[in-house]
């Protein structure tokens, strides 16, 4: 059940929830940009600590996102493994030194530089993921749409975003039900089956999901037309919320920290923090 509802808005009373949707969007974007640009371990570590603190502040429990986190973690490790397989000496190239730990074959060596590089890559994702999750889990979709319109995004687009978020949970439930019914017919998605069978199994679940979702879209668009959506150039929002002092403070500090982060990252002329020098 918890797996069904993952990734949709969780209502809580926390300082993070009280922030305006736009504030959270700006924070999320700035955070992502800085962490994606930077390979500076100091910046990334600081960001990670901060993201954990914010996560605690938001009163989201680890078990509510455990499944997603495990899933992401798995792909992260996969990513690390892939980097190693395709470019075992990437770290050596970047940091310019070679501290060999041991050698597997001609091509595959294990160096401190490579480990450090992979550590940084992992760190990057570990800093972005909690913030991305928080953004999804703490932003009331309708209020978010209202805020987006507030900063100049056309309301048709922002409403589309909001409606997508509204139906994520429903489509997840649909997916769950369809997948069970198709498993009963014999679709096997477990690891026991081969890749080819698994892909065809996924299509057997995806096709009905798409078609039942299309039914839903038809219905919603009718319902919206019938109640005058798109009638006027402008639209008001029942749940609109003005910016609070706190929002300005948060945006201010986020921008400030981002600039500092980028400054530290690029101060030595490159994106990498190099502990192997000198």
């Amino acid at each position, binding site marked *: *059940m918890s797996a069904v509802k993952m990734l949709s*808005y969780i209502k809580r009373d926390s300082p993070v929830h009280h922030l305006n949707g736009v504030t959270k969007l700006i924070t999320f974007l700035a955070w992502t940009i800085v962490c994606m640009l930077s390979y500076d371990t100091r910046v990334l570590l600081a960001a990670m600590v901060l993201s954990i603190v914010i996560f605690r502040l938001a009163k989201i429990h680890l078990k509510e996102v455990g499944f997603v986190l495990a899933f992401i973690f798995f792909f992260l490790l996969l990513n690390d493994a892939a980097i190693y397989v395709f470019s075992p000496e990437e770290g050596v190239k970047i940091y310019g030194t070679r501290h060999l730990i041991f050698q597997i074959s001609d091509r595959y060596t294990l160096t401190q530089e490579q480990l450090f590089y992979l550590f940084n890559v992992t760190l990057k994702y570990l800093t972005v993921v909690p913030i991305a999750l928080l953004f999804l889990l703490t932003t*009331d*979709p*309708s209020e978010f749409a209202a805020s987006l319109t507030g900063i100049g995004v056309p309301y048709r687009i922002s409403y589309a975003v*909001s*409606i997508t978020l*509204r139906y994520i*949970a429903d489509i997840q439930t*649909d997916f769950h*039900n*369809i997948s*069970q*019914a*198709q*498993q*009963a*017919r*014999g*679709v*096997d998605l477990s690891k026991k089956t081969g890749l080819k069978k698994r892909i065809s*199994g996924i*299509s*057997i*679940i*995806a*096709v*009905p999901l798409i*078609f*039942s979702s299309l*039914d*839903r879209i038809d*219905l*919603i*668009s*009718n*319902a*919206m*037309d*019938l*109640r*005058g*959506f*798109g*009638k*006027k150039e*402008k*639209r*008001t*929002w*029942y*749940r*609109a919320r003005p910016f609070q002092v706190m929002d300005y403070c948060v945006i201010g500090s986020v921008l400030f920290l981002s600039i500092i982060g980028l400054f530290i990252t690029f101060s030595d002329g490159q994106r990498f923090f190099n502990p192997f020098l000198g």
Partner: protein
Amino acid sequence: MQKPIIEFTNFNFQYRAQSNPTLIDINLIIHSGEKIIIAGPSGSGKSTLGYCINGLIPHYYKGNISGSLWIEGQNSENLKIFDISKYVGTVLQDSDGQFVAQTVGEDIAFALENDAIDQKEMISRVEKTSRLVDINSHLGSTPRELSGGQKQRVSLAGVLIDRVNILLFDEPLANLDPATGRYAMELIDDLAKNTGSTVIIIEHRLEDVLWRPMDRIVLMGEGKIIADTTPDKILASGLLGTYGIREPLYVTALKYAGIKITEQMHPSSISLMNMDTIKKPLQHWFEQTAETKILPQSNAVLSFSDVCFSYSADRVVLENINFNICEGEMTAIVGKNGAGKSTLCKLICGFEKPEKGTIELFGRDMVHTSIRERADFAGLVMQNPNQMISQVLIRDEVGLGLKLRDVPQNEISERVEATLRVCGLYSYRNWPISALSYGQKKRVTIASILVLEPQIILLDEPTAGQDLRHYTEIMEFLQTLQKRGKTILLITHDMHLILEYTQRAIVIADGKLICDNHPAKVLTDDSVIKPANLKETSLFSLAKSAAITDPFEFVKKFISFDREARQSCQQ
């Protein structure tokens, strides 16, 4: 007299993609303050007529229009859908899908938001309108937290807030349990009284709509208006059966008793009916008719003993459920929305595991079997066929389960063809599924389960949203399967279905099994009806009004008489 508020004159409509017109020569005047039912089978054009009134035609569905339609004194040709939405408020059948916004308050405010009304005014108007339909204590709730009836009240508030004069309901009862449907009709009636709105209800469940008095019934068939008159006259005319609309059960009972239905009897309502002329023949019929005894029970194929289940510690879904299903029975599982019926189904199929107690299929504890293995014993047909269909061709869809079980190709073809023959789909076997009607698609999904040869077939709301013809088609088909020895379990809201086809009904209310008995018991016993959101069958009310000594026995006799009558009708 009153002024016409909607006026169709020589109106025709043809959908762009279709070769024949859907509405033919419609002449219809609806006056301000009237309460009208538009009835007709699927494909009769009743929904299309509704789309014309609310502007979805020609705004969303394109096609050719001839003749004229005036709404509130204006030619609809000159009206945009947004203009029409100021006059006509539409409540759609699927109140969940119609729920556009995140919460109740926002959804009610949706029309005002689109009108760019100031936030302050919006909040006060939402408050006022939500009070009108008694949903004001749930303004912050999400659609998932609401019952079917509550969602419908939200839809209603969402159109009332625009101060519309015309309320159009598209099959408002289709997704509601019987008691909630009855309450919905009362609410609609009271609102019409208080606001003076014109009410147009598109619905084929006449008996349920007539729970409150209606002014007129417009009967449609094949795109034309067949009759446009009072409910009493229509019921007396005998036209309903001809055009695939189910007449109220008590009217059928009167006919069985040899009573001629006349307009003067006021057949549209039991409470208004003059009983003096009816009593005698009805009592006579009751004494003359014998009930055919139901065959003794065979061995149990499915049994629940002390089964408990919950999704989380604070919400117990099922509590100490005990029952046996016998081979070859057709059993209904009934109860209000969210009572745990679907969970029961999932437990049988192994999608969920019981926390306590055992579920046995053919005397075997099923705890360690996989979903797939269990499907060889019990197969589930989901409510919406689109939730199951993944292949393009019918034969591929039906054969999918076998293919996934690595059955050899020649055996697949053989079994698929045999199943398609049983299901009456053989001549379509190479058709694309997209070319089939809803009822036929449903049959494909049943076939795709049947081909796996499970002894038990579970169906989730097999007849929801179907008109009488499709309903009969699906149910008669299930009955032939039953006669071939299959055991059939149905989740349903439809009291007619229980009465006409099932041998037993299992009633679940608030996670407990409160009744496991003959359908007549379920439809007459107040201690079952109330907690399960069912309603007393009109047969029972009729029997009581006619001073029949044992009204329960009357219902039982009606059921057995009716089954025989329909059977001999078919032969």
